């Protein structure tokens, strides 16, 4: 990779690994995150998302491999990176017994933002994140959504070029989550590169690009739409009765990746190796063709297809 293209990358990880004793938390991860995009990390709890983010922020040293963030070698240049990155931890990590404004003032001082610049930046953030009314309230007494907005305001106070968000919305209701993502797109629009980890499909779908992680291994990465289009399976919806027995019956077939009930229908993932999955299902189950439908794959289907192997 030449220098010109690597400078376009916000994160460039090569063969990055990290082990804790016997456990390989991250195994041979190759990752290219373009600048000015929102990049998603999708994976179940314990898949290595936090470990990866901690390596990208210089908090953890890789066991092997290389990682460059904003063109800075880590962990060597970790201190330089700190001025240019923002990090929002999974757990609320501001001070519960300080008010909203005091928390922001504290963070501003840490980044050396003083005087009028501090006052105007804090006022701006308070209004952008809808916290002006709450500025004298203790951070500990706010709702999950408000606290999340405060944490985002604090993480972006020094206008970082890259923002790391570790499961930012796990304690937030759907409406606040929507608003939160709108804010992320605003930041992205202003030139910030964002890496966000999540285990929510709807959130992952919003990202420009996405990596699916499982057991520290990257199973797939691309734009969500492409991931769905190139999925190595077909999705068939079966409307029938006796779905529970049908499911058990289907799950025994090697061509079936998964079967999950959604209300009164069964959503079945069939491997791409079959030429006509509909007929195959019909032959196996004797359910009339009218009750079978090929439907558009969702991100969840992609996730299950990518990660299914090791689960069985």
């Amino acid at each position, binding site marked *: 990779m030449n220098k010109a293209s690597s400078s376009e990358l916000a994160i460039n990880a090569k063969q990055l690994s990290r082990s804790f004793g016997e456990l390989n938390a991250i195994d041979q991860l190759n990752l290219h995150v373009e600048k000015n995009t929102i990049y998603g990390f999708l994976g179940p709890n314990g898949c290595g998302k936090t470990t990866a983010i*901690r390596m990208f*922020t*210089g*908090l*953890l*040293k890789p066991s092997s491999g290389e990682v460059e963030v904003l063109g800075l070698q880590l*962990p060597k240049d*970790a*201190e330089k990176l*700190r*001025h240019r*990155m923002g*990090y929002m*931890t999974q*757990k*609320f*990590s*501001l*001070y*519960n*017994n*300080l008010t909203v404004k*005091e928390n922001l003032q*504290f*963070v501003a*001082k*840490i*980044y*050396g933002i*003083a005087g009028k610049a501090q006052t105007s930046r804090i006022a701006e953030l308070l209004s952008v994140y809808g916290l002006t009314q709450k500025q004298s309230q203790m951070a500990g007494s706010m709702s999950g959504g408000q606290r999340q907005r405060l944490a985002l305001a*604090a993480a972006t106070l020094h206008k970082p070029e890259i923002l790391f968000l570790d499961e930012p919305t796990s304690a937030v209701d759907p409406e606040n989550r929507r608003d939160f993502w709108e804010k992320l797109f605003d930041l992205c629009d202003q030139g910030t590169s964002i890496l966000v980890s999540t285990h929510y499909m709807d959130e992952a779908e919003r990202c420009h690009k996405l990596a699916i992680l499982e057991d520290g291994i990257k199973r797939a990465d691309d734009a969500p739409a492409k991931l769905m289009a190139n999925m190595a399976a077909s999705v068939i919806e079966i409307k029938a009765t006796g779905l529970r027995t049908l499911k058990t019956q289907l799950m025994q077939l090697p061509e079936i990746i998964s079967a999950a009930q959604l209300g009164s229908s069964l959503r079945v993932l069939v491997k791409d190796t079959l030429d006509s999955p509909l007929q195959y299902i019909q032959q196996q189950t004797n359910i009339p063709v009218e009750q079978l439908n090929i439907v558009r794959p969702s991100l969840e289907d992609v996730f299950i297809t990518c990660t299914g192997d090791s689960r069985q």
Partner: protein
Amino acid sequence: MIASIYRIQAIFFKELIQLRRDRMTFSMIVMIPLVQLMLFGYAINTNVRHVPVAVVDYSQTAMSRVLLQTIEATQVVEIIQQHTDLKSAQNALEQAEIRAILIIPNDLSQRLARHPSAGFGLPAASDEETSRPIAQWIVDGSDTMISGAIKGLKNMPLSELFGKAANRNVPTFEVALFYNPEQRTAVNVVPGLLGIILTMTMIMFTSAAIVREREQGNMEMLITTPIRPIELMLGKIIPYIFIGLLQVCIILGLGYFVFNVPINGGLIPLFGITLLFISASLALGLVISTVANNQLQSMQLTIFILLPSILLSGFMFPYEGMPMPAQYIAELLPATHYMRLIRGVILRDIGFTDMMPDIYWLGAFTLICLAIASFRFKKNLD
């Protein structure tokens, strides 16, 4: 450099705001020295008085009653029980109702008559027939302080018993008591208490303050910011230096006005060595904070340091009386060195050269602890 000071200041003010909101900690800062000073100042008294005792008087004479009055007049003991036989008196001793039994034999008068203080000339000292003790104490010896006080009655002058003037014998030694002529315990306890309270609060507050950041997840945010470990540590401990000085003022002020403890030395050496000791304790607190994973552990480690500091530093028991191994341990504790310095300055106004060994030791201790703490405090999660 300016950015660095700015960051230290950010931590410092944040710490002050949090401290102000933490009512419990804030009141402890004032209450610990206040209550401890009152407790130690009033309760701890090495001059034992009014020990409850019983009397078994086999002689039942006017002489024995006068003897008892003379003994009670010393105020060392208080006769609270009279028994007719030794058995019931021993029972009372076993039940811990009394601490000692005085047995007056029925031949008290004869013994008294032959006793040297009766004034019939000195009998041969070796002749037990002619001169014997007039009565016997049976003492609960488990508490050495109490048995010591009663042992002090062994050679009680009996001149008053015979209506003579008080004993004017020339003593073997003349004893002049410097620095604390009235023998008030508070004079020795109050300066020592400075060392104990500073050890307790300084180590506990710093170690807990840093461990708390880690426990509540704030550290994960802090280490992703440009702040340096040394800036974080300094910002965290500076508020506690002021708290330490505030506590010193409370203890010395109360000691001066309530317990009449004089401050013979200058205030500059006093606050100089106190600042040095505060630094040493804070540095030790920092080391603990890099070892402990949560506030409970940091508290346990603080007590681990505090107990030997109370017992071995010379605060409660004289350093010189301890066996050698205990003295070696005591030498390791900053409190021991501070105890010597502060008592020297407050009570004896010692000179700078006399302080040097302990000052060097405290300074070296502080530097070593700071080095260990910054070495162990890592700005990553490995």
